[in-house]
């Protein structure tokens, strides 16, 4: 009996082992891998590493590039954090799987040494068609290492149904003594945020808030910092850390003063959460990246009732944080010529990015060409915000990502807790940033 069972089991194991062996053999012989096309190994193809959300911006350019030059472009999409890790690992190992990479602006200083200089591409004509902050940002140690593929900035979103409501307008004027208009200054923004924090059905609960306050991201506070007129964003060119100074305190105080007019849970609120709140009609205003204008769902509570304006201004004027992505060519790729050709082509055909999911471009001339057309109402505020004198790029510091993750975001998250000591938080963050860049 035992022997029979063992024989039966033995046969099962044998069949199982044979099956596994067959799979292994098949997979090995078939070259392993079912996805996409073949890797870009030939001379007539290049591979572009890109964050998943930005792939759509480049696809029309890649399609046209292939038609015009015969060179096919294969995209490798990765999640945002994963892209950084992948780049870091490949540059560290010296073994590259891509010929062009789309890099977030804040990564350029980190990877600059491994990138091919693009100085020849950045002619005077090219530079004059790019926003000043982008020209500054594209340079690391005096050499251009990335060509902006598209750019972004926070602008002001507001609900036109609320702002154009005669009853709201009358109430606002009675309460604040001036007309209800989309705010352009901190003071107006705070007034409007306070005004629209309302209990609309009289049940004692707030039904709509004036604004949101984001605690889980840093860029909005950085824009607020620039709006004070601060010329060094956190870290100056000489390595001086400006956190804790008068401007940074003023920025943090204003940022957190809006908490009473924002939904709870600010410490955990990030971009996705903020966008959801606005699209659900839960806040009257939102400061957000310009691309969101095209992403308002047709069945959203605010669809058709959204206006956009230039980012608000503080004591130092209007300011945003440029959020550009750059095309860079790794020095280690053997397809330098093709890769550089693609970068130049992407610049020359920048207008192809306009009709995509994000609908962003990087050239001033392209944005200006579309700014008055229906559906592109976000372009003018974007242009004005990026052209504002106080709009400056984030510091060209290779440790910037670490500064953001370890010092800035934790500081903001603590600051949006009621009763926080902002000066102490800034001082602590300053010490931390100094230890990071030491």
């Amino acid at each position, binding site marked *: 009996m035992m022997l029979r069972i063992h024989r039966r089991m033995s046969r099962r194991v044998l069949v199982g082992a044979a099956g596994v062996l067959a799979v292994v053999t098949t997979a090995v012989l078939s070259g392993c*891998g079912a996805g996409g096309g073949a890797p870009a190994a030939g001379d007539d193809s290049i591979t572009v590493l890109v964050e998943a959300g930005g792939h759509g911006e480049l696809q029309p350019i890649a399609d046209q590039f292939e038609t015009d030059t015969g060179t096919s472009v294969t995209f490798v999409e990765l*999640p945002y954090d994963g892209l950084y890790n992948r780049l870091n690992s490949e540059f560290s190992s010296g073994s590259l799987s891509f010929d062009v990479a789309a890099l977030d602006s804040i990564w350029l200083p980190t990877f600059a040494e491994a990138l091919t200089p693009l100085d020849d591409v950045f002619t005077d004509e090219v530079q004059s068609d790019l926003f000043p902050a982008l020209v500054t940002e594209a340079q690391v140690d005096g050499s251009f290492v990335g060509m902006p593929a598209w750019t972004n900035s926070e602008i002001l979103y507001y609900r036109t149904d609320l702002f154009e409501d005669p009853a709201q307008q009358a109430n606002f004027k009675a309460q604040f003594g001036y007309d209800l208009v989309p705010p352009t200054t901190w003071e107006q923004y705070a007034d409007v945020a306070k005004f629209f924090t309302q209990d609309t059905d009289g049940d004692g609960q707030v039904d709509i808030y004036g604004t949101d306050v984001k605690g889980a991201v840093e860029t909005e506070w950085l824009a607020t910092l620039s709006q004070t007129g601060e010329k060094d964003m956190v870290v100056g060119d000489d390595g001086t850390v400006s956190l804790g100074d008068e401007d940074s305190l003023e920025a943090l105080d204003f940022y957190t003063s809006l908490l009473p007019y924002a939904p709870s849970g600010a410490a955990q609120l990030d971009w996705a959460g903020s966008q959801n709140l606005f699209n659900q009609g839960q806040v009257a205003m939102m400061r957000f990246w310009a691309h969101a204008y095209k992403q308002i769902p047709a069945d959203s509570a605010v669809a058709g009732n959204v206006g956009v304006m230039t980012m608000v201004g503080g004591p130092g004027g209007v300011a945003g944080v440029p959020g550009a992505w750059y095309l860079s060519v790794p020095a280690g790729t053997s397809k330098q010529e093709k890769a550089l050709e693609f970068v130049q082509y992407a610049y020359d055909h920048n207008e192809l990015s306009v009709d995509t999911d994000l609908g962003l471009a990087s050239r001033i001339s392209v944005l200006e060409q579309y700014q008055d057309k229906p559906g592109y109402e976000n372009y003018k505020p974007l242009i004005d915000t990026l052209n504002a004198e106080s709009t400056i790029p984030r510091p060209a510091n290779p440790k910037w990502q670490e500064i953001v993750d370890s010092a800035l975001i934790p500081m903001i998250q603590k600051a949006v807790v009621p009763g926080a000591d902002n000066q102490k938080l800034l001082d602590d963050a300053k010490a931390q940033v100094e230890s990071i860049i030491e």
Partner: protein
Amino acid sequence: MNGLETTRVSSRAILWVALVLLVVLYGFPFLYMLFTSFKTPLETIAVPPTVLPSTWTIENYTSAIGRDGVVASFINSVVTAVLSTAISLVLALPAAYAVTRFRTRFGRFFIVGALVMRMVPPIVIGVPMIGIFRSLGISDTSLALAIAHATISLPLSIWLMSSFFEAVPEELEEAAKIDGASRLGALWRVVLPVTAGGIAVTAIFAFLASWNEFLFALLLTATRSQTTPIVIANFQTQFGLDWGAMTALAVLYSVPVILLALVLQRHIVAGLTAGAVKG
């Protein structure tokens, strides 16, 4: 009902309540993900969130499946996980057998060394692997990724199989040898069938380690061998988060594993309890 019976019933009731709470605790995130996958895009981002969809739709599933590379990534995940499991078992079975049967000093050193390998952060071996696989000409293949995954599952597989082999009385092998079997024959005809449950458990652990792995897949794959965890992560971009499609794909991706666990449930239970009581 006397006092003893009352106490017994109360204890069972408390136990059942605790079990139900535990199941709810573990099951709720998955159920929430399942329900979210059937919500409309707008309802997936509703504030405050809803548990059950007000309108059921399969739109997220069609959207997720229709996305470029999703089906291919599924195939890649299956091929990679099967390959990785096969590599782990083919290497772990003889290694564990040798360690448990020969009991040499080197064997003891080896098995501790295998455990130490589990303590090395994957990123440390991930970076050199990029160069190694490229020089071998197998970068961006399921084989390369499976080998990388085997570095995760192999130590655990060796340890698991060692405990299962340990539970098999050596007398069984002796009996087979008396009947004329060689050591290899005894291993093949007697030990492996007896430890089939253990092998199933080890295979499942190895399979799951590969199925859900993210970091190596991120570092070592591109267009040809990208697995589904990377594709799922790609639904969250810097510019938005497609909750509906993401949860739909996550549900689909968990189905094969759930089926596998159900099919092999008997072996898993048998394997996990094997060796618990030595006779």
